[in-house]
């Protein structure tokens, strides 16, 4: 067929009109270069219409083979991650300083509370500088109020964002006896009314400065207040107050090098499983058992309650046997014990023999924290851990961030009744168990990024930190929940960002509606968390940030993304090319030929016309 179409178009005439023969050509009519009739359009129009109908069909084809992709709000995701990266989440913080006994007779007016307030604010700004730690109070998100309670009058500052009059019962300090810290703490708790009493949503941190004729002593209580008592000048007092506010209440009394907030061991769904393991390295030597049920009831329940705002904690336990550590210790004659040095610690945990499995009860993405109590065998007892500086670790334990902690417990006496072959079951005594749990408490605090000692030494002196029975004081939980919120939002933003990059890089990936919904809800929750945070509602913002993170992870790890990765372009090409390749070749070639032929014929006709015209003119 193609051969015929290719016949050179310099044939004498087109077939459309037979008149060419009837009209007697003039003497110089050259059929090779001119024609006397208009070239026909029929075939040209035909092939062009076929071509155009094909071109028109292309969008329909593309539409029919299109892959369903739920529309994702890429722009919102970008703006969220940008806003979180550029400006870390900051919470408003409310401070309240109470000065008791700073009485200069009639000079109370001169001693303006407002003035003190401004001086504290200035110091706070100086101390925080411009470090934008996520989960802190930013650089100008403070409100400070001051109450000066003297014997004669009680003046409160105004205009600094807080109505301080209702925060402090004037004259309450007169009954204050500064003997027992615990008593003082409880007394202050009853006197200091938090923000709730005054109609504020957030929490108010209070420092009470009492001028007395005694040694300066600064104590941070279990709740949201601290007190300073002793011979202190106003300037010193202001410095100390500011340090307590900024370093302790806002930053949690952390030191450099502590575990950062982004390594908080909380699962994506806000759940933590504390998995306690008692490892008997060699049960042939001795078998120790513990009364974990009692421990769970007595010691762990308060901790779980206290950490409620940050994480939902569940506890499980097991006792394992035949679990040697994987590295060796050496005998030290002086200490009469086996020494395990710090540099070998990475090889202490024996992942082959210690089957500290993940929990079946824990669902989804909860974080499992392993707490291992290791009882060495007779041939390495007593086992002591050595610090890098050569000292022996007092707690005989170590932690591994995000994994958990190991506590080495040496059985008393390390004596073995080698003669008795039958099993002697020992129980770890309650006192020993309590000691082990004290160590665990410290480890847990460290895992969450808090200090494990009860003394904070700042630039302006030392502060005593009262320890709570539940292990975590209220202000510490506040710090943790702020950090947790912040980290959740950060992780949500990065997860959503990766999802959007992934989706954009694979244009043929199927995205289900469910994913789109999850992304939408996650974004909504993140925005809610941000707005709650700016209002200072810690709990609500923690909850919605957790929700945002878990939804984002749900979307990212959706099974449909994992399984049907994508429907490739090659596949599509292979299916459609056997039809479209030959057909399009035909159509395009036909159109091109017809078009060319039409052009040459048109030229011929024009040539003839000019000729005729010139003849007529002649």
């Amino acid at each position, binding site marked *: *067929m193609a051969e015929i179409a290719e016949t050179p178009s310099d044939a*004498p005439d*087109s077939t459309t009109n037979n008149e060419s023969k009837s009209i007697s050509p003039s003497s110089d009519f050259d*059929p090779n270069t001119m024609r006397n009739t208009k070239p026909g359009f029929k*075939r040209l129009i035909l092939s062009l219409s076929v071509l155009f109908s094909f071109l028109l069909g292309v969008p329909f084809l593309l539409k029919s083979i299109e892959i369903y992709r739920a529309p994702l709000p890429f722009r919102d995701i970008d703006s969220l991650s940008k806003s979180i990266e550029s400006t870390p989440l900051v919470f408003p913080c409310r401070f309240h300083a109470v000065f008791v006994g700073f009485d200069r007779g009639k000079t109370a007016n001169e001693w303006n509370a407002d003035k003190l307030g401004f001086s504290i604010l200035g110091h706070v700004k100086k101390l925080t500088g411009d470090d934008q730690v996520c989960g802190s109070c930013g650089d100008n998100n403070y409100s400070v109020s001051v109450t000066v309670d003297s014997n004669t009058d009680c003046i409160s500052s105004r205009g600094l964002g807080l109505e301080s009059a209702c925060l402090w019962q004037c004259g309450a300090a007169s009954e204050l006896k500064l003997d027992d810290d615990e008593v003082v703490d409880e007394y202050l708790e009853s006197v200091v009314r938090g923000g709730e009493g005054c109609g504020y949503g957030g929490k108010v941190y209070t420092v009470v400065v009492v001028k007395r004729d005694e040694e300066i002593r600064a104590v941070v209580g279990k709740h949201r207040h601290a007190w300073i008592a002793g011979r202190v000048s106003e300037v010193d007092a202001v410095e100390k107050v500011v340090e307590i506010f900024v370093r302790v209440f806002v930053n949690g009394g952390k030191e450099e090098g502590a575990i950062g907030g982004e390594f908080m061991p909380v699962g994506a769904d806000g759940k933590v499983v504390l998995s306690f393991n008692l490892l008997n390295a060699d049960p042939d030597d001795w078998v120790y058992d513990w009364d974990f049920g009692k421990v769970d009831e007595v010691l762990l329940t308060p901790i779980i309650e206290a950490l409620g705002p940050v994480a939902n904690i569940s506890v499980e*336990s097991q006792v394992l*046997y035949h679990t040697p550590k994987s590295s060796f210790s050496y005998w030290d004659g002086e200490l009469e014990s086996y020494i395990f040095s710090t540099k070998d610690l990475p090889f202490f945990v024996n992942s082959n023999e210690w089957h500290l499995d993940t*929990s079946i*009860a824990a669902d989804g993405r909860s974080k499992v924290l392993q707490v291992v109590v290791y009882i060495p065998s007779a041939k390495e007892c007593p086992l002591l851990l050595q610090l890098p500086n050569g000292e022996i670790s007092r707690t005989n334990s170590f932690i591994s961030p995000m994994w958990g902690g190991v506590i080495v417990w040496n059985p008393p006496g390390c004596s073995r009744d080698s003669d008795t072959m039958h099993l002697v079951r020992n129980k770890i005594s309650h006192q020993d168990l309590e000691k082990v749990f004290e160590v665990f408490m410290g480890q847990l605090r460290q895992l969450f990024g808090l200090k494990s000692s009860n003394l904070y030494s700042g630039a302006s002196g030392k502060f005593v930190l009262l320890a709570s029975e539940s292990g975590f004081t209220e202000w510490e939980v506040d710090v943790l929940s702020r950090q947790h919120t912040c980290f959740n939002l950060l992780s949500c933003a990065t997860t959503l960002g990766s999802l959007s990059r992934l989706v954009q890089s694979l244009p043929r990936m199927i995205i289900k509606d469910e994913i789109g919904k999850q992304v939408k809800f996650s974004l909504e929750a993140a925005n809610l968390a941000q707005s709650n945070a700016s209002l200072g509602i810690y709990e609500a913002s923690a909850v919605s940030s957790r929700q945002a993170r878990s939804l984002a992870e749900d979307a990212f790890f959706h099974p449909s993304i994992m399984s049907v990765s994508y429907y490739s372009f090659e596949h599509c*090409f292979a299916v459609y090319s056997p039809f479209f390749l030959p057909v399009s070749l035909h159509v395009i070639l036909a159109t091109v030929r017809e078009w060319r032929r039409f052009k040459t014929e048109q030229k011929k006709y024009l040539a003839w016309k000019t000729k005729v015209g010139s003849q007529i003119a002649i």
Partner: protein
Amino acid sequence: MGFPRWMILLLFVICFVSQSICKEEDPEEEFSEELLLKPLPDRKVLAHFHFQSRAPPTETYGPHHRLFPKAIYQLVHKYHIREMELSFTQGRWNYDRWGGNDPISSNNAKPPGVELWAVFDVPQDQVDASWKNLTHSLSGLFCASINFLESSTTYSAPDWGFRQFAGNLRYGALPREAVCTENLTPWLKLLPCRDKAGLSVLMDRPSIYRGFFHSQRLHLTSSEFDPSGSDMGILLEQTLTVVLHPNNPGDSMYSSDSILPPSWSLSSLFGRKVIGKCVLAKSSNVYLQLEGALVSELSSRKKENERDDTDNLDFEGPWSNSGVELSVSPDRVIKEMNSIHKGGPSIMYEFLVGNYSDSKPFDLGLMWKIPVAWSCPQAPLHANRFLMGSGNERGAIALSLKPTKQSEGFQIPDINRDKCSFHVNVFQVVPWYVKVYYHTLQIFVDGKPQSVRHLVTKMRVSPSEDKVSPGVMELALKLPCSIMSAALTVDFDKGFLHIDEYPPDANQGFDIPSAVVSFPDFQASLNFLEDTSSDKSPLLAKLQERSPVLSYTEVLLVPLTTPDFSMPYNVITITCTVFALYFGSLLNVLRRRMGEEERLLKSKAAKNNEQFPLLLSKLYAKLRGRPWEAPQSSTPSSPSSSSLFSTKLLIKVVLVAGVAAGWRYYSG
């Protein structure tokens, strides 16, 4: 001086009594390990490990355990499991040679692959959800593809055919699951001593997996959700049953004496010795069982050999009786009471592993002194299942039941002499792509077809639903005692699967899980003369437990029509090519210029003035049914034609090259 001593004794007794009372009041977790060894008639040795852990109920004991595996406890509580059994098996239990009527073969001879059944303590509508979650958890826990049992096409809900009283029971089997070390290691992790101490030290992987049969089983029973409040707690039973062939190098010496069964010891069987018990185990025993038939055979041989000797035939005293010699003296000999089987009571030798240590390892050996031949107690009927028919369209499943040699004159449980009969239950699950027509069920007794109504007392059939559920058949048959053979046949059509549903290597065929044939009238249990309830060995208690005799049939391999998996592409390609051809020719016809062509042909003919094109054009004209016109001689010279021709050719070549380049660009 006597007084204080007496006092001390009294104190001691008081202490002891109080302790024991305390123990009774305060239930404790228990763990025990036991091993049963048994020489088999075909010179192989059966080793049956039995580990049992018990956890007291949570109400009184709390959720923290020191011996009971945490994973299992959490599993029971998360899915509310009342009873569960999971088995991993490699090889097929040889019912002919290894016995079919003893507790081991009824309880521990499992079908090849994975078998899982579970009874849940949840409302009826949540059972399926619990089952699905359970399969996923187990598949993670045991490193196996148990999660394939999640799909509703793979599991079924038997009513009474599989177990007598089954509410909320789900049953699933994966016949093609390969079982290996990766399944054994997590199973061992559930034991407090793993394979570090105690009897499990013997589990040397190469020797275990070299065996002829290997079945690793986990059975758990819990009363945690039982409203009646029995204080049993959770009972976890882990067994490993292996059949090994002893091949010690010393064998070659006696190769001439081939009738003598090969002697063996623990170290020759497993390549290891037991060095002491697992310290956490309450009891750690090894039993050697000599079957009744073997014992009577040995005693008769002894009688023959030492007819004149007046030695009494007492098996309780000498462990080296005339036929066999044990390398270790047993701590106790337990005799079976009155065996219902032919051949007299069997004997169990008990060894306490706690008496052995590093310096004195326990290595039990058995030496044969005289050649003996005996046979194991058999199940009343021997069940075989096979496929009938040929081709890829239809076939039939046949289940043949034949009485075993022993049961030819078996004791009749139904004492009605005239109509002596016994019950047989058959439970069979067939995947949906084997479409069984249950109305075609035929039963042949002694080769003659019998009416189904006569023999079947109870029947429950749930036909398969395509891609939804498998077909389940539960049959209760009542067969006369005098039968020589019985056979059941059911016809089926082979279904077609969607191309996505074929497993890899579909040409191998599809497995139909084993059918279960049980004999509720026959109980597989051993009764021991001595009162073993005092020390309560869990293994002996298990052997004494009355359970119906059960046997599994073979796995069937059904070849299905497998498509050529590249076929869709071929179809697409050929259809597209045909369409393209049609379309192209149509387009060309549409834009054809007839007159011009004819003129061209004429001019060509005139130009060449040759015969052939002339003839061609004549033929062409004839074909087209037009009068042939002589070519006109007015031939226009066409000097440009050749050049135009070549440019066209050039364009074509360029176009093709362009397409090729584009193709490469995209595909590269």
